[in-house]
């Protein structure tokens, strides 16, 4: 069965550093998303992406965040200057006719 993949599985970074989280969505899906889950809290929507542009973003998705689909397969989330409160599990997802499928997540720890 096709699946969404994410790299890296874990990332530790210093506050103020830039991080790029990578995702490979399911190949025939057209909608891509990033969600995050801070430890002990709900899974929260960050951003959706369609047709090479952001279709919707949440209040969390401020100027420090950006997304890109640099080629035909990858979908990236960049955090320009990480803060302690960015520590969370970041999930990529893609959706098609059969529904929405999540990747395994990247656990980001900002020190």
């Amino acid at each position, binding site marked *: 069965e096709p699946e969404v993949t994410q790299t890296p599985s874990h990332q530790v970074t210093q506050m103020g550093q830039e991080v790029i989280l990578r995702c490979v969505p399911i190949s025939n899906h057209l909608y891509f998303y990033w969600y995050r889950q801070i430890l002990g809290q709900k899974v929260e929507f960050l951003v959706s992406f369609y047709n090479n542009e952001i279709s919707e973003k949440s209040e969390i998705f401020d100027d420090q965040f950006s997304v890109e689909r640099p080629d035909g397969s990858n979908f990236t989330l960049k955090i320009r200057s990480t803060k302690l409160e960015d520590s969370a599990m970041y999930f990529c997802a893609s959706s098609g006719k059969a529904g929405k499928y999540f990747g*395994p997540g990247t656990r980001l720890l900002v020190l």
Partner: protein
Amino acid sequence: AQSVSQHNHHVILSEAASLELGCNYSYGGTVNLFWYVQYPGQHLQLLLKYFSGDPLVKGIKGFEAEFIKSKFSFNLRKPSVQWSDTAEYFCAVSPLLFINDYKLSFGAGTTVTVRA
């Protein structure tokens, strides 16, 4: 905006017991409904979904859910749980805006612990 509430934070059962997890949502329009499961150390997996049609949907691993529109509910059930069902279960709702575009609002999750 839509919101989702899950009634139970933590449920503890014995193997072979029946499971029912409550989920209610608030949204004025048509919705798609989902249950996801997250096994310890693993990612979110789609258990089942409701888009339209028969309000009783069957998913993987013997789970089913019933959409009751009048109650804004989408409860998850399994008649006989196994130890391997120990996981966190999330109800999620997406407004029916565009085909194949599902912006999910998640409930807080219910941790299910099944004792052998």
